[in-house]
């Protein structure tokens, strides 16, 4: 899993690098006044792996997402202005929703064009969504289409895809009908699955659609000019793009580099303009050099341990409590994650908001509270553990308790982390913890079959709605296989997801999270942080590099320029 997790961290870093644009005035006056825009505008950057495909209906990896964000235009673009999310027009110039919040109408600009000069029309949006909903397509992200009317029946094959709740009222008016009102629907249309697709192009290339630069058409700020598989991707400015006046870059050159030291050498030699520091050593090296701008972004991904509530030992809440409260988050971040992440004391990632407010700020740090409650009661986690063991009739000697912690990875990092866990639980609970290392496929197989006790995983939020992370643990989804089920939790999460009133919605989510945390189903450990460095000549119009950035803003390379290269 380390590979996967690192990939996740790195890729989220890449996505964040895109998030690095948007926002209000330039706060860094020194850089802003340092010079004019360079004559030749280009960016050299990298990604650690090859995008799987550019087909919006088939892609699911972050690499393709990074390319599509800059080469496609959806209905809207989520950007950042003055430290807040701002929904900017994409292909849709204006939009409105019905009073019951179920019907959304988007008015597509008549000047929106594809890279081959064809106009962007509403029926292309309809086609794209129907294609993704069609079970014959095999869309891995259909998740995003689920709120749309009749999706469930279509996905199970009971209805035809043309009965999906999307309609082209006329050439430039798109109407989307939802099953239930969904407060975060507009934001969710920023996802790649909402990009339009051209039936003629899809049919022309068949299963080759999106596999090469020329087997796609683009309607975004850039086109994919060249794609040398496993080697490089070149984006070029799209002259047909409706907002091309506001696009400065002429080209973005991606090199696919997967080796960490090769990435470092490429950055140090000036071959690439961006790098994501993955070790304390790199972090310090680049931070001390003025030629680099340090952009730290956190909050979209969480790392946690979770318990199999169907397991004999971990069906006991007190035992879960002991294992959770025994964790010293700061120590784990320093020792386990080399200080590269941030400790996290609740389930919802800090980047997720309800309206303008961060849920994490509203909900506080439930785990911290529980720890201090325990301290006040004068008990230690070990006492709780022994209480739990007695309840189960397992005696009162923790050293005889047979517990295995499953890690999805076999690399050095996992072995070191495993040793840390063993030592930590030995000291705090007196347990002789066993560690099981396996590859992700096997790990996941064990999870689905309930053959584990404690597991360790990362999870990222897809879009900015706490429901996105809460739904993972709902009885119907059970996506991390804890086997946990709580009616009140399900009900509160669901209620929140369709509640239009922000205060009430926040309230529902906060309550749901608290139920979940207080039942000790998981122990959230940390949130991953992207430590991105860019050369000081790279700038962005609204939120410059080096400033705090909102996690879910995705303007791609649209607002980026260089000055003083």
């Amino acid at each position, binding site marked *: 899993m380390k*590979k996967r997790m690192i990939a996740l961290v790195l890729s989220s870093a890449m996505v964040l690098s895109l998030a690095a644009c948007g926002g209000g005035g330039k706060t860094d006056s020194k850089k802003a006044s340092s010079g004019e825009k360079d004559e030749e505008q280009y960016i050299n950057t990298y990604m650690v*792996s*090859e995008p*799987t*495909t550019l*087909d919006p209906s*088939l892609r*699911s990896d972050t690499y393709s997402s990074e390319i599509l964000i800059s080469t496609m235009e959806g209905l809207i673009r989520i950007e950042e202005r003055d430290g807040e999310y701002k929904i900017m027009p994409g292909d849709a110039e204006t939009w409105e929703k019905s009073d019951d919040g179920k019907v959304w109408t988007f008015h597509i600009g008549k000047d929106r064009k594809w890279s081959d000069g064809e106009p962007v029309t509403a029926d292309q949006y309809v086609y794209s969504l129907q294609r993704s909903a069609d*079970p*014959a*397509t*095999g*869309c*891995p992200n*259909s*998740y995003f289409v689920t709120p749309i009317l009749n999706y*469930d029946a279509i*996905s*199970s*094959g009971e209805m035809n895809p043309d009965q999906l709740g999307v309609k082209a009222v006329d050439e430039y008016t798109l109407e989307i009908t939802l099953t239930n009102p969904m407060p975060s629907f507009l934001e969710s249309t920023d996802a790649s699955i909402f990009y339009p697709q051209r039936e003629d192009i899809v049919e022309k290339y068949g*299963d*080759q*659609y*999106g*596999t090469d630069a020329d087997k796609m058409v683009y309607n975004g700020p850039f086109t994919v000019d060249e794609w*040398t*598989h*496993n*080697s*490089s991707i070149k984006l070029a400015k799209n002259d047909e793009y409706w907002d091309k006046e506001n696009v400065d870059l002429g080209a973005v050159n991606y*090199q*696919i*580099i*997967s*080796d960490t*030291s*090769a990435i470092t*050498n*490429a950055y*140090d*030699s*000036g*071959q690439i303009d961006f790098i994501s520091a993955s070790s304390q050593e790199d972090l310090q090296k680049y931070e001390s050099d003025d030629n680099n701008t340090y952009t730290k972004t956190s909050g979209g991904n969480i790392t946690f341990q979770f318990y199999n509530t169907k397991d004999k030992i971990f069906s006991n809440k007190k035992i879960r409590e002991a294992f959770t409260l025994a964790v010293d988050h700061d120590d784990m971040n320093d020792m386990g994650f080399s200080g590269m992440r941030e400790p996290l004391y609740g389930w919802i990632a800090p980047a997720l908001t309800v309206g303008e407010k961060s849920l994490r700020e509203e909900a506080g740090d439930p785990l911290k509270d529980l720890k201090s409650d325990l301290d006040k009661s004068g008990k230690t986690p070990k006492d709780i553990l022994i209480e739990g063991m007695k309840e189960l009739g397992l005696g009162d000697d923790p050293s005889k308790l047979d517990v295995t912690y499953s890690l999805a990875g076999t690399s050095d990092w996992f072995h070191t982390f495993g040793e840390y866990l063993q030592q930590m639980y030995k000291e705090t609970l007196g347990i002789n913890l066993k560690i099981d290392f396996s590859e*992700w*496929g*096997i790990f*996941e*197989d*064990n999870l689905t079959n309930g053959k584990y006790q404690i597991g360790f995983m990362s999870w990222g939020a897809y879009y900015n709605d706490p429901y996105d992370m809460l739904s993972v643990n709902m009885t119907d989804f059970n*996506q991390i296989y804890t086997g946990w089920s709580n009616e009140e939790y399900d009900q509160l999460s669901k209620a929140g997801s369709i509640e239009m009133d922000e205060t009430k919605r926040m309230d529902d989510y906060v309550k749901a999270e608290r139920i979940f945390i207080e039942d000790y189903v998981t122990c959230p450990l940390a949130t991953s942080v992207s430590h991105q460095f860019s050369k000081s000549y790279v700038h962005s119009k609204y939120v410059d590099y080096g400033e705090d950035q909102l996690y879910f803003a995705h303007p791609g390379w649209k607002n980026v320029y260089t000055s003083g290269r």
Partner: protein
Amino acid sequence: MFKYTIKRICYMIITLFAVATITFFLMRSIPGDPLASMARTLPEQTKANYYAKYGLDQPLFTQYLMYMKGLVHFDLGESILYAGRSVTGEIARTSPISGMVGGTALIIGTLIGVVLGIIAALKKNRWPDYIVMFIAILGATIPVFVLASLMQYVFAVKLGWLPASGWGKPSNMVLPVIVMGFGSVATYARYIKSSMLDTLGQDYVLTARAKGLSERAVILKHVLRNSLLPAVTIFSSSVVGVFTGAFVTEKMFSIPGIGFYYVSSINNNDYTMIMGTTVFYAALFIIMQLVVDFAYMILDPRIRVSSGD
């Protein structure tokens, strides 16, 4: 000779068949099905279609027959990770790139290695010998990723002469060729040296010298030709190594070759791609073995007599 060739080709096909079969069942015996992580979030119907697309809804034996049938037609299926890309197409696209980098490195490395080996043998226990053997030991002991990173640091970061990584320009090939060729230099220098020393002690060399031939003629006509024979043996495995052993170099320099692709398909659990590449490597290896055996027969009459039937 003809009979022998036919026999060898038959053996080759049987070996390949065995490799393909073992690979297939080994891959299938790994816990978790090939599409598990991909299909996890899919709705039921979509999942069913997905499994049907790769034939995974069929019983294992049917799958095996389908796989073998495809193999006969050089159809290794479609990559699971990269939708729309056929495994055969990927191999055809990536292997020439590996061949180009690895081949250049191998040829240059071998030539240099042979020359250094000869020098070392002729100047045994003098300073040229020590220098050559020092290089040979370095080449055999320094891990490729260390050497690659060092080269990038010196030539790209410090001197700025060459790009650190990438593909497409001739300058991109310089560092990888040096890194890969270094290993060949080391190997061949050592082989040729010991083989030369061995030949120099042979009776026919004594005879040649006794005949009053010049030292130059002795070395070129008698010693060198005979010393090169063992090199042919390792050359064949080196050729396969061009495709297989280069994945570290390819990864370090972002070369879109087959080694890099093979490793990433393993990391990504791309089953069809893993199976396809494994069979390809096996085929390549077996063919190279055959070529070497024939090369021997041509080069050395003694082998021809004993192995031909």
